[in-house]
């Protein structure tokens, strides 16, 4: 059953990607860590993110932002509750199906870019497809198209070390966009950027949102959260809509 769901997901007209259906549906999600004393990082979190939404999750350090991101990105499992991504219930999925779902539906953007230093920009972008079912043929062309989307065609064969911070983050965004994910999950995407590059990346998010991309940004920067159409605040594992 999950295999069928995943196989169908990539095709156009997918039932899971039907207009109007939320991309993210969190229902009463808790995440406990078995320490002494036990820590409840997420407490009965419920959240819906619709297709094309631009959501900012804000909160102080230790509030549960990263745990929420890990749950949303299928990097971690909630202790209880339900999480449906694109209509697929993920909490009951086996590890390999979660991994595949993560590769095909979620594009990650990290604060520290995570670009492989010994590969060119386009090779870094192409990396996003090697664990998916996408055919090898035409991969470079698709990567170049993603780079064009972020305005980085003039740096295609550069190593990441020769790029500015903003360019590196744009390369990372191009990688996240390859394969057409349902969700762009960004963890402090401007945390390592100066104000000019921050503006460039935020401008890119605006463009992507205008194209219908669902974006969830975790940030503690006011400037970033203000650009999002919707904001939620997390405090001590509890989510509050602002």
């Amino acid at each position: 059953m999950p295999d069928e769901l995943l196989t169908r997901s990539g095709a156009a007209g997918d039932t899971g990607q039907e207009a109007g259906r939320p991309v993210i549906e969190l229902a009463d999600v808790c995440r406990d860590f078995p320490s002494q004393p036990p820590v409840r990082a997420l407490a009965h979190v419920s959240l819906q993110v619709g297709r094309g939404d631009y959501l900012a999750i804000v909160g102080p350090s230790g509030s549960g932002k990263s745990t929420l991101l890990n749950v949303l990105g299928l990097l971690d499992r909630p202790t209880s509750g339900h999480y449906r991504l694109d209509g697929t219930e993920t909490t009951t999925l086996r590890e390999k199906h979660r991994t595949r779902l993560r590769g095909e539906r979620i594009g990650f953007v990290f604060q520290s870019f995570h670009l492989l230093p010994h590969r060119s920009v386009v090779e870094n972008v192409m990396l996003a497809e090697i664990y998916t079912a996408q055919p090898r043929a035409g991969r470079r062309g698709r990567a170049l198209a993603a780079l064009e989307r972020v305005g980085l065609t003039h740096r295609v064969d550069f190593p990441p070390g020769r790029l500015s911070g903003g360019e590196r983050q744009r390369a990372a965004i191009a990688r996240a966009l390859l394969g057409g994910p349902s969700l762009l999950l960004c963890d402090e995407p401007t945390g390592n950027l100066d104000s000019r590059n921050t503006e460039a990346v935020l401008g890119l998010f605006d463009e992507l949102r205008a194209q219908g991309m669902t974006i969830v940004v975790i940030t503690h920067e006011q400037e970033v959260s203000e650009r999002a159409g919707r904001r939620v605040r997390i405090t001590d594992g509890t989510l509050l809509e602002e």
Partner: protein
Amino acid sequence: MDVRDLIGEAVAGMLARPVRSALTTLGTVLGITTLVVTLGVAATAGNQIVGRFDELVATAITVEVPETEHVPLVEWDAVDRVTRLRGVVSAAALAEDKDQANLSVRSNDLVDPARVTTQRLTVLAASTGLPEAVRGRMVLGRFYDAGHVRRGDRVAVIGDEAARMLGVTRLDAAPAIFIAGRAYTVIGVLGDVRRERNLRSAVFVPPTAGRRFGLRDVSRVLVNTDLGAAELIARQAPAALSPGNGDMLQVVAPPSPTRARDQAQEDVNALFLILGLVSLLVGAVGIANVTLVTVMERVAEIGLRRSLGAARRHVAAQFLLESTLIGLTGGVVGASVGVVAVVAVSAAKEWTPLLDVRLAVAAPVAGALVGLLAGLYPAMRAARMEPVDALR
């Protein structure tokens, strides 16, 4: 994941740190080189040893004649009967006194306090075919003949080492030596002895003369045969030498050439094989160590790959393939260096290089296998990493 992508990622991972990869490969290179060189040189050297075995030992038979109280088991003329056997090249009978191995031999009868003129040397009575039987040649003069034997002439032939010890350098003045106080004319010096090399320091007298020192009965017969005839002659010689008491003689025949070859190679191989395997083990530990360090350094990359949809097996496969490729590279380089080294050693020694083709093929495979085994633990560590921890 496409296999081509997996190979591409592994190769890229290996080439990302070329110096480190090269240094890691060195361990396997050394191990495989040692293995190929040792096995190659062992096979080549073994072949040389066998060659010498064939030439010197495989055709040499010694018949030991036990002492008897009454009638001697082997008469002096029995040697003629042995030489008539098909396959016998030469033969000689010797009489040695086991109780009185060395006799006092002097080069002159004067007492010269400035020189050591008296030596204690082995004195043997030998039949006339001795030079051929010990595969030597007369470096000076001649060996005694049937006439000397028949007449009981007081002549002697000395080994080249004995000649040096006694100071005999020329024979034109017919020098004499004194054996147990009796003078004997030295008529020849026997040298270049290739069989029974201890006879170089011995003194030989005709059987008729040897009786004076108690060297009456034949105690040993040396027989040389054609190649391949040794086993047959070893069976026939006792009957020829002592028709009635052949079974009392002890025949020391050479080991079978095949067995000798195998034994020689096995001895050499076992030793060097252990050496090569130890080197290979050191190489494997090196790969495991460096791969583990690499895994720890690439935690963020592992996290990224997991976020991009890589399953645990993809991560494990990549690191395993990287270590296998390092091992394979080491194997290929090691095998090449090893083959060149075997050829070089053979050229220097003027040997014919002998190398099993299977070894040249198996060596890279062994290298790859070493890399694979060495990468198991690091790959497992990488695969077990939780993406959340790896991305932290």
